[in-house]
């Protein structure tokens, strides 16, 4: 069985993000870019499933400009077998690639690769959409297990048992394969890219395609008009008496 893992190149989690002066988007020039942390967890899970014998091959895929190949190389250095790079440059920051377009492209890739399982991060840390996995499952008409904190694969029965982290607690569901799983933080601790694996990764194949070749129309029907920083938090005020508190609640905050 093959596992397809989709990864995204985003601004590194530890970077202090700033809005561009022209307010068209976030500053990404000269800023460290890395693989989305949830995508790292997805790659790690796929590798563990392969090492446990539940899958034979792990294929990493990404959609983005030429530099996104770095993200794929990281996935390969972690241990993925092959990679697919869907080239897409978004020169217009007002029309970035949105989850629906990403899901359409991944659907095309999945139909080509025919994996038994598609694993994605639950959301990307740049847009926090949390939509791609769910949309992909819908387009493919496959079952989905999102916010996975545990995945157990049964190869003979072709089923996946997924523990999902939901607001009410942990929900355990059973999916028929092929299925889509999105990873949550507590699923695993991603491995480091070791030197021997980095060496091996140099000879691994990255297939390049374009959305046109996949027959996917990714025209965006949404336009970003403005990006601004949230208003700065005002300092708190220390009050000296209950009367002052009541006065402020009544006359300033208007809650009484």
């Amino acid at each position, binding site marked *: 069985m093959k596992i397809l893992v989709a990864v995204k190149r985003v601004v*590194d*989690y*530890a*970077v202090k993000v700033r809005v561009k002066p022209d307010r068209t988007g976030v500053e990404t020039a*000269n*800023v*460290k870019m*890395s*693989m989305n*942390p949830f995508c*790292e967890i997805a790659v790690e899970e796929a590798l563990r499933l392969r090492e446990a014998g539940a899958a034979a091959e792990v294929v990493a895929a990404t959609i983005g400009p030429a*530099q996104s190949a*770095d993200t794929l190389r*990281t996935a390969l*250095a*972690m241990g993925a077998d092959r990679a697919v790079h869907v080239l897409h440059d978004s020169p217009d920051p007002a029309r970035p690639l949105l989850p629906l377009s990403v899901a359409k492209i991944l659907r095309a890739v999945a139909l080509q690769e025919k994996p038994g399982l598609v694993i994605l991060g639950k959301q990307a840390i740049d847009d926090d959409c949390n939509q791609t996995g769910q949309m992909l499952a819908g387009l493919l008409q496959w079952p989905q297990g999102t916010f996975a904190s545990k995945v157990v694969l049964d190869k003979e029965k072709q089923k996946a048992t997924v523990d999902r982290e939901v607001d009410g607690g942990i929900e355990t569901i059973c999916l028929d394969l092929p299925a889509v799983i999105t990873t949550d933080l507590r699923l695993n*601790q991603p491995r*480091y*890219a*070791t*030197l*021997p694996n*980095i*060496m091996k990764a140099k000879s691994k194949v990255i297939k390049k395609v374009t959305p046109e070749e996949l027959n996917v129309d990714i025209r965006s029907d949404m336009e970003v008009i403005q990006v601004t920083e949230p208003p700065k938090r005002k300092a708190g005020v220390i009050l000296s008496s209950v009367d002052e508190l009541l006065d402020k609640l009544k006359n300033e905050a208007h809650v009484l």
Partner: protein
Amino acid sequence: MSWRAAARLLRRLGSVAAEPPARDHTVNSRRTFHWIPSPQHPQCGPRTMGRYDAQHSANKASEVQMHTFGSAAKQIQRNPAYSELNSDDISYFKSILGENGVVQDEDRLAVANVDWMGKYRGASQLLLLPKSTTEVSKILSYCNSRRLAVVPQGGNTGLVGGSVPVYDEVIVGLTGMDKIISFDNVNGILTCEAGCVLENLSTFVENEGFIMPLDLGAKGSCHIGGNISTNAGGLRFIRYGSLHGNVLGLEVVLANGTVLDMLTTLRKDNTGYDLKHLFIGSEGSLGVVTKISVLTPAKLPSTNVAFLSCNDYISCQKLLLAARRNLGEILSAFEFMDHHCIDLAMRHLEGVQNPLPASPYKFFVLIETTGSDGSYDKAKLEAFLLRAMEDGLVADGVIAQDISQASNFWRIREGISEASVKVGAVYKYDLSIPVEKLYDIVEEMRSRVGDNAEVLGYGHLGDGNLHLNILSKKYDDNILAQIEPFVYEWTSAQRGSISAEHGLGLMKAEKIHYSKSPEAVQLMASIKRLLDPNSILNPYKVLPPSVL
């Protein structure tokens, strides 16, 4: 004791005193020319035993003997020439600093009286918190006239007992002087007060696209004034060099209250003797640094960190040579640690992951590169490491793929010091040794202390600087006897420095002769007498009392 008297005495004791090796008068003359050696005594100064220790990092102190030992060879008596505090003094200080600037509260004093390791404890009754250079000047001028001893205190993170009182010296803490005065964001020149915390300065200049030229594990607490007064080295030394090169100007208050304004922001200024160098590294014994101007290098966008394991120490050395050659201008850190350090870090630090769990290897190296082109640097580092693996220098390794992974690697290296304090008692030595011999002392020390203690070796291999730590459950004179003076003699024999970057402080105040010639020490004493005739600044430290 004057130089002449000492020389006479030594001649008389010719046969008894240590035999110096062939006198060579090269610049870094390292004759093992000992002053009359004294028997080892644990230092039991007027420490208040059983006093509640408010310092959080010394949380093991209650399990460790409260007996604060010192490496001082003999018991230092409180110099009776210093006056004792009286109520008139307190009133005067209150009149110039205000009520908030004069601290006599027991709990706050308890914290200020103990060093970061919980090893040295003073008995000061007064902590002063000036807010401006004028206030510092008035304090010192008064203390000089009254002959009150003073300890300048920054972040109190020093490791040789230089930042806490020995007896009842008045502590002058500069935490209130933490303003950034100006920043030239074209040339990267930062001017600020001495009480600024290093991490805050880092954050500030990084926002402007620059970085501080030094970085150390204590950055969250240490003050830049203290860093300069101790000529701190740190993790970036290999790339940006010493503070002697990066500090452009200082404002210093001398012992008699004179304000010496040398706060220039010029890169080049060859007018007269460059006095600031006297104060950089003099550990607060020649003057109190109040303002600084420092050159900050440009922040380069691409950083890569690799964590590697090597079979033996020779490989680490060869790797350093290869790194210098192949990574060249982008190399920004080269740290090494032995597997004892990694084990310790994993046991005692929270939230760290072992980058090479399956590695049975003995030595680990952390390499960092910083450059302007991300993909070029990464390719260069990968190529270098893969070749190093093929050549057998590197047994295994990982490269950080994002900033969190890089921080994890650094956390391990920076946390070794913190982790070692949690074991109990730490005997810390900071030595400059020729790189080929660097690890030999660790192995010798291991065989000397045997099962009684754990010996760690780690440090800035790129600078030839070893941090030798010997850990045990509690401070024990038997263990100390195994360590000293052997470690100093060994280092001296290798023509190394007994204090690469930590300074002399109280811990090594009697040890300067292992690394400096008597003539040099005499000149230092003359300078000290010139700048501080009443010897009120940080007494009992840095220079041996016998030369003053």
